[in-house]
């Protein structure tokens, strides 16, 4: 399995504590990049700017990804453009929220 895929799989274990749904199914992860030294760059967003869980979730992502053996440094790039919208959620997340 490639390191990108390992990181993606690990992020399924980071749960948004307010919604009780993992950040991958919520569609918060926009991209995972790995350089030649296995440093990981994660581009992500939150459901709303000014989310009080901002630091908690960002640190959760760093902690979980750092636990993967091959990973070097982890950098989280929080972006607001494009803004998150419900269409980014998986069907599983939509089902859990009773949406759609």
């Amino acid at each position, binding site marked *: 399995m490639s390191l990108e895929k390992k990181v993606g799989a690990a992020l399924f274990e980071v749960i948004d504590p*307010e919604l009780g749904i993992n950040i991958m199914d919520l569609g918060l992860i926009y991209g995972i990049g790995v350089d030649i030294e296995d440093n990981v760059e994660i581009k992500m967003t939150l*459901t709303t700017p*000014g*989310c009080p869980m901002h*630091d*908690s979730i960002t640190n*959760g992502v760093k902690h979980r990804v750092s636990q993967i053996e091959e990973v070097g440094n982890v950098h989280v790039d929080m972006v607001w453009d494009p803004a*998150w919208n419900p269409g980014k959620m998986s069907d599983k997340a939509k089902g859990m*929220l009773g949406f759609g």
Partner: protein
Amino acid sequence: MKSDTNVKLPLAFIIYALIALVVAQAILFFNNDLLLAGQFRLPDIWMGAHFLLLGYAVMIAMGAMYQLVPVAFLTPIWSQKLGYIQFIITAIGVTLFAILLGVQPDNAIYGGILAIIGIIMFIIQMVQTILKQKNKNMMTYFVLGAITSFFLTIVAGFLLAWNISYGGIGSHNTILASHIVLGVAGWFTLLIFGFSYKLVPMFSLSHGFSMKWAKPAFFTYIIGLILLISSFWLDFMFLETSGWLVLFIGFSFFVLDIKEILAKRIKKKLDKPFTFSLLAIGNGLAIHLIAVLLKVTGVDHPTIWSWLIFLYVMGWIIFSILGYLYKIVPFLWWTHKYSNKIGKEKVPTLKEMINEKVSVVLFVLFTVSVIGLTLGALFQIGAVVFIFQGLLALTSLAYAVSIVRVLFV
């Protein structure tokens, strides 16, 4: 952006407030005969009312603002050190003031002065914090409107306490009416409006709403407050009816926005405590409508108006706070205890930190108590007032315990 506020600061306010809630309801229970007689302007009722409004509602509002202002306005608290000093002074001042109102009203001003110093420190703290906000929005104006009303409320309150101690100020009743309107409608309502624009979308995960009624709601409600307060000073009945009508229209604009936010929510199944806060919005709208109808039909019986003010305070303000607190305290405690553990080990969700089933029972009991108490008083049935004020006091105690329990998860 996280709230940089140390958890101890908002929690200190919240724990003091929960104790004050139980004390207030116990005082009102032991004076249920005065409630039955509709005698609200007596020292013991003043004591209970000020423990409820200053001790519980104001202290909760202060604690919640120390937590929510940095989150909602994306700016850190101006001085946390001032926050701790302000907490101690306000807590001592409010306690002393409420007790003196009950046992030595002539000396209440001394407790009042201390409470006012604490409140002014809070106002300076919040104004300094909010002024640092880069991009002002409608929420900013609601909170500034609320803080301005709060300042005017304590000025009016100081004049009342001065008059009780030394006399010499005419228009005591007019100042009292202005004090009540500025406090409950100006400070609390504008504050709940403002924070609801952040909290309702956040807790319902709403997207794509417009907030198009926020500005009309703000200006209309402010105009309503000015009209109503002016009517007390000018003693002009038409102005009073107009004031209530404009307040109702302002509240309706706010409800239109909340309706749109909820219609566009993604989280279809809402948490029960949050639903209770939404129910309080419905209560608030109904109470404003009843006030308009009473004025239009010329109903001026003081007992009816006393109980309408009671319903305004309990059904709208206190119920809103009771519901939101079930979300705010778990969030505070989760951030303190689990924020650095997420991603390393399994941590509970916010919902797992509360017992939602118990909250439903408590919220039903609060609703039943308030309805029973009001009906008992309006129909002058002593046993009903006794039972439901007793139930309200016990429910408040159980509620306080259920919130404190979160801190042991």
